[in-house]
């Protein structure tokens, strides 16, 4: 038990440092590491992971409480789809759990672990590809009008904080549903998807997108915590270790962040994502062969 708590503390310290350095990176690193390194069953890793995200995002919102940049109206529209998404994600995880053990080449592995790791692997590789291409683009042009502004499905809502303020409500709600589904299924806060989505798809300015996505992550993790705690997907000692390690690591990361170049930071982050993807791949292969 002590080894597990120390392991969780170390994982949280590293992930908190990465969050402080890069601004994203809570759940999609912590959840697979809790499962692969500490051997926590995937549903417990996901549940404890979202509780950790709730703590991290609460602290983040406290730090930015005076910035007044969050677009609460947009966050609430996205939340409409988000709540259903979290519910469907958690239900999918429960359905995987109900399938019990899979036997691959004579080795038994929990179905919930196997299927979730495969979806997580696909997500990690997509994030890596996206960030790798982004960091290699010579002169990124600022996005003025997001892709969502070009999709015309009524009814619409006006968001004065955007340069193209008229957006389709169904498009936003379905996007919220997708992000919520990933949170419910994988224990990722969604910031890593929400932040680029708010900039490139919604057309929001980066600083405003950071605070709005943080607020969204907080709301989504709040819903996901209730959903997972209801099903008993919680390991209290590991959660405490994650919260303590994460907050210390975050402060170290923030201090280091000011001393490193932004582009280099994003490139390093790509390799961290690739490293975790390689670990997940190794775990999947170990189960299959």
């Amino acid at each position: 038990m002590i080894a597990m708590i120390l392991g969780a503390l170390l994982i949280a310290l590293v992930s908190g440092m990465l969050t402080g350095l890069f601004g994203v990176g809570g759940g999609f690193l912590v959840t697979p590491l809790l499962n692969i390194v500490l051997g926590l069953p995937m549903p417990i890793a996901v549940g404890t992971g979202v509780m950790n995200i709730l703590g991290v995002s609460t602290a983040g919102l406290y730090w930015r409480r005076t910035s007044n940049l969050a677009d609460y109206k947009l966050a609430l529209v996205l939340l409409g789809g988000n709540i259903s998404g979290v519910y469907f994600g958690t239900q999918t995880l429960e359905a995987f759990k109900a399938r019990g053990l899979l036997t691959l080449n004579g080795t038994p592995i929990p179905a919930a672990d196997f299927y979730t790791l495969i979806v997580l692997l696909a997500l990690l590789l997509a994030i890596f590809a996206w960030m790798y291409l982004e960091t290699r683009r010579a002169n990124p042009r600022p996005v003025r009008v997001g892709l969502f502004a070009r999709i015309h499905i009524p009814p619409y809502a006006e968001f004065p904080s955007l340069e193209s303020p008229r957006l389709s409500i169904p498009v936003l709600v379905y996007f919220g549903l997708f992000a919520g589904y990933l949170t419910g299924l994988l224990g990722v806060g969604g910031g890593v998807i929400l932040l680029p989505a708010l900039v490139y798809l919604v057309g929001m300015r980066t600083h405003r997108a950071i605070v709005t996505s943080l607020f969204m992550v907080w709301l989504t993790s709040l819903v996901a915590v209730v959903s997972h705690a209801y099903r008993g997907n919680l390991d209290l000692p590991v959660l405490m270790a994650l919260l303590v390690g994460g907050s210390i690591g975050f402060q170290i990361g923030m201090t280091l962040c000011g001393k490193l170049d932004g582009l280099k930071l994003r490139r390093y982050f790509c390799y961290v994502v690739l490293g975790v993807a390689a670990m997940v791949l190794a775990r999947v292969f170990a189960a299959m062969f």
Partner: protein
Amino acid sequence: MRVVVNILLGLVIPIAWGLLSAWAFEWLRDRQRRKGGQGG
């Protein structure tokens, strides 16, 4: 009963820790800044 306790623990512990740690680190930074200001 167990479900209610789980939900309360899952909500209260992370939010309380998040607020407390952010406030404590902010207080420490302010204190260091004030000390630095006095020294300079």
